[in-house]
């Protein structure tokens, strides 16, 4: 009772403190975003921020994701760059190890360490030796998207429930013209873009192997490659892709429009992606009736999470103001906006997303995943882009090889090459773990 009273008083004092305008602080804080769809949330935050800091300007710039990462990599180590760093989980280690992050204020650090506020897997991304260095803000959790009309027309009563059913459904949902050319993909696979391709290949791999292709190693920042130990699972996934790209079971083709654009235009009946697809398809394919379910299980049942972390640049001249901005971004209205407008799932467990879910129930699959679903996060490491790109090139070259149809040994050779490529790069960067 006493503890609750103290907690309530502290919250009241904090809200009063946030409400008092700080006119002494002057200057500008700059924010760069690699996910422009979250701009609305930052603009809402900017409005609240200006009430407290009327003399501090806020500059928000958006970039395409890879361009954003390149700009950060060049500017932050040089002592410039934005005040607030919105970092993807796989590039977070780079800035922590480069000494580019400011110390977190105690209240925010406490929030990160509180399981009731931030779940443990997400806390672990930002914590080193027990000390958090950033606030996990949202996650892109994956799911299987399916076109309701296509399934009904094919006589299928509901979405696939298992890994095997995914491929069976894909064959039934595929459409071809009189020349035998595919006009609709039963499932839109990730066939190009090697780095992302590795990730999406991993969606299937995890369900069969029970582990990611690249798991965190024994020491923080190191990675272990699991492909060799799970070669049968890896080869099975590759074979399933190849058999549905060549031959009688063909369910996808490079010439068709892919991914969310393909799904929103009706060129694909199913595909796997993260939650941002929900607002995207509503906007770009308003006639498409779709549903989303967790990625169907096999031996394992897991969901990929791509996490965005908020931190402050150690070279920022307005660190306190920047951390205040980050506090404002935790407000209920702003996290609701993140979910509703961008589709990314806020990680605050102490917030109520009921109002958003009432408008869009499909988000519930992402905000409240099944209790037995394992939430996995990629092993962050400094060689992430190079490793995933080169491994993806090997895998996607395998997709094009029609001679692999029914060729388990050939598929194993390809996946071992992928394994060796990853090991070589990790060893070269000094972050390989046995």
């Amino acid at each position, binding site marked *: 009772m006493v503890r609750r009273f103290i907690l309530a008083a502290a919250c009241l004092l904090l809200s009063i403190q946030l409400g008092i305008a700080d006119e002494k602080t002057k200057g500008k804080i700059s924010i760069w975003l690699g996910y422009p769809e979250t701009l609305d949330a930052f603009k809402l935050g900017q409005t609240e921020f200006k009430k407290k800091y009327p003399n501090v300007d806020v500059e928000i710039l958006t970039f395409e994701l*890879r361009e954003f990462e*390149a700009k950060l*990599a*060049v500017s*932050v*180590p*040089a002592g410039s760059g934005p005040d607030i760093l919105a970092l993807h989980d796989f590039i977070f280690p*780079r*800035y922590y*190890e*480069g*000494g*580019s992050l400011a110390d977190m204020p105690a209240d925010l650090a406490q929030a990160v360490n509180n399981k009731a506020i931030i779940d443990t897997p997400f806390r672990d991304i930002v914590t080193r030796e027990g000390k958090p260095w950033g606030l996990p803000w949202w996650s892109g959790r994956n799911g299987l998207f399916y076109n309701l009309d296509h399934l009904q027309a094919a006589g299928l009563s509901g979405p696939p429930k298992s890994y095997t059913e995914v491929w069976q459904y894909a064959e039934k949902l595929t459409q071809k013209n009189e020349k035998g*050319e595919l006009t609709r993909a039963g499932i839109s696979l990730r*066939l*190009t*873009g*090697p780095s*992302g391709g590795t990730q999406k290949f991993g969606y299937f791999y995890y369900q069969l192997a029970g582990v990611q292709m690249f798991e965190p190693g024994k020491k923080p920042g190191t990675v272990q490659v699991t492909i060799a130990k799970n070669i049968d699972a890896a080869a099975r996934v590759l074979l399933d892709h190849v058999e549905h790209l060549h031959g009688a079971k063909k369910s996808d083709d*490079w*010439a*068709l*429009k*892919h*991914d*969310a*654009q*393909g799904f929103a*235009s009706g060129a694909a009946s199913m595909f796997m992606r993260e939650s941002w697809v929900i607002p995207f398809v509503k906007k770009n394919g308003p006639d498409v009736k779709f549903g989303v379910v967790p990625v169907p299980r096999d031996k394992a049942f897991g969901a990929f999470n791509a996490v965005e972390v908020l931190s402050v640049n150690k070279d920022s001249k307005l660190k306190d103001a920047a951390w205040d901005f980050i506090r404002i971004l935790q407000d209920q209205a702003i996290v609701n906006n993140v979910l509703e407008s961008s589709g990314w799932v806020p990680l605050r467990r102490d917030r109520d997303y009921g109002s958003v879910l009432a408008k869009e129930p499909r988000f519930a699959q992402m905000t409240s995943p099944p209790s037995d679903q394992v939430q996995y996060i990629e092993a962050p490491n*400094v*060689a992430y*882009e*190079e490793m995933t*790109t*080169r491994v993806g*090139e090997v895998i*996607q070259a395998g997709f*094009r090889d029609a001679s692999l149809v029914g060729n388990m040994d050939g598929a194993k050779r390809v996946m071992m090459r992928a394994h060796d490529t990853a090991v070589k790069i990790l060893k070269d960067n000094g972050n390989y773990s046995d």
Partner: protein
Amino acid sequence: MIPKKHVPDLIRDGNRFSDKIMREQESVRGNLAARFQEFRDSIKRDHLLWVLIALGPVFALFCIIRVYPILETIRLSFYRYHPTQRNRPFIGFDNYWRLLEDEAFRTALINTLQFCVMAVIITLVLAFAIAVLLRSIEKVAPVYELLLYIPVVTPWVPASVIWKWIFDPVHGILNYGLTSVGLPKLAWLQDEHVILYAIVLVSVWKMLGYFVVVYGVGLRNIPDELLEASELDGATPWQRLIYVVIPMMKPIILFTVIIATIIFFNVFAPVYVLTASAQGAPAYDFKVVIGEIYQNAFVFYRMGYAGAQSVVLLLFVLTLVFIQFTLFREKR
């Protein structure tokens, strides 16, 4: 009122004053002329100094923009340089040894060589043929040259975006044309065997006009008497082309081959835009040397390794240029 007795004095004084001014002016003019002559003499004497003063600022700018980055790139190629890592050790030739094992770079080099050879030959042969044809319709040739030059001044990126739509396997106009004459559709950017020709097509379209204009200038400078004389000697048009026109055009051909080689060997923008894997438009990952350098530098942040690749590219292009100079240079 001026007293009468002072007027002559005044006039005399005025004349003396104006004489004095004129003498002074003549003296100044004489001094200026002398000074200018001195200046001209000093330029002749200290010629080198004046050249340095005149060209100095331009040369300084050139050094800052061109020379320093090249030297710094060469220096970086001997380091393990990652911009976000504090440890940047000197590693000697390790980056160069790594190139020998880099399959991706090898693929990029082969792709770039194939593309360069095809693009140079097709562009220059086509440009020469068009320039020769335009000579026969000299009055309207400038109109055609202008039309052909429009792609040259169009920036690479928007041009490549438009071509991406032209190449679209489902909605593109190229495949529409193919199917309308009963030919099968092609996956222009998706098929690994076809994408090279797609990129060559875009590059030839883009640069053709430039070389048509250059060859046009060269052809106009061939003396008509030579052509008339050879005609009188009974040479056919083909013989005139082979034995008169082409030999006379050798220096220009050398110039165009070198420029075309440099342009096409450094291909990047059309490949990047055409094969950019936006989520809904997959394309085959066609590797070229500059693309590999870009990826290593700005995606993998291996700046030192990208530096080594850049040095190799520089040596490669210099070698190609040297070979072309040797082959096409006029023998004295």
